[in-house]
């Protein structure tokens, strides 16, 4: 069974925002809502500027699902985290819980009233009939049911943003790292949690003042 995932290669992302535009266009996302955005750090610093495209990461242990008081989230067979707008009450808990800022709220109602949550669906629509008008209006296009992948990933010109079966994505990334001849050192336990303690290392002698 495939488990759908996104990954963005910071070595390749050129901050063109084509993924953002593709998502907006494909799903006809309302004004003020950005299901995907490009984040840049060290902007303008030569050699240090890095960008990545961020949206819902369809977490395997999704905090939004855990905190939703009305249990509007569900997970598809492919591991995509989706939600039911008929159940959502727009409380915003998911927005506070999400580390990626994925949940978005349209605020074009009276007095900037917060509407129902909207987020990246991995172009997998929602609980309405696949490819129906109702599904499109509420959740956007269901490209997965059309045998396609998310528009953002398929549109990415440098293929920085990859989307699809997590196992295949891992293979693609491994290929890249091998071809680059570098990069493997920036992945793994040491990067995520700090280097493993060296059992031979001795503590530095304390300075006496």
């Amino acid at each position, binding site marked *: 069974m495939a488990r759908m995932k996104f990954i963005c290669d910071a070595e390749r992302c050129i901050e063109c925002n084509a993924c953002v535009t593709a998502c907006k266009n494909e799903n006809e996302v309302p004004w003020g809502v950005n299901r995907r955005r490009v984040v840049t750090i060290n902007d303008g610093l030569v050699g240090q500027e890095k960008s990545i495209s961020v949206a819902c990461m369809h977490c395997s242990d999704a905090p939004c*699902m855990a905190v939703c008081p009305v249990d509007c989230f*569900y997970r598809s067979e492919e591991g995509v985290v989706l939600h039911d707008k008929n159940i959502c009450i727009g409380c915003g808990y998911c927005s506070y819980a999400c580390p990626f800022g994925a949940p978005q709220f349209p605020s074009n109602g009276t007095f900037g009233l917060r509407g129902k949550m909207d987020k990246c669906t991995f172009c997998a629509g929602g609980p309405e009939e696949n490819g129906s008008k109702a599904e499109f209006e509420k959740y956007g296009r269901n490209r997965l049911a059309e045998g396609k992948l998310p528009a953002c990933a398929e549109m990415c010109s440098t293929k920085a943003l990859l989307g699809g079966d997590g196992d295949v994505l891992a293979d*693609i990334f491994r290929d890249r790292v091998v071809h680059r001849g570098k990069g493997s050192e920036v992945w793994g336990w040491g990067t995520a949690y700090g280097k493993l303690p060296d059992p031979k290392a001795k503590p530095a002698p304390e300075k006496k003042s």
Partner: protein
Amino acid sequence: MMRALLIPALMFALFGCGEKSQSQADARDSGDQQAWQGANDPFVTKGWTAGNRTEWERQVRSRTQNQNEYIRINGS
């Protein structure tokens, strides 16, 4: 007697502290159609039959692999 009352009371009090399993196997039946069942629109790609899960998985897998230009362009 006290213990007999206390244990169910504690169990009831802690009931809300649990967290639902989020494993794929426990995916909630939301009534959502599966992706492999196809979409009711004219944009469905060719090369697979709606309703055939194996074909859909093959289609998506090959499409994912198409993002690997080391294979797609170089053929290496």
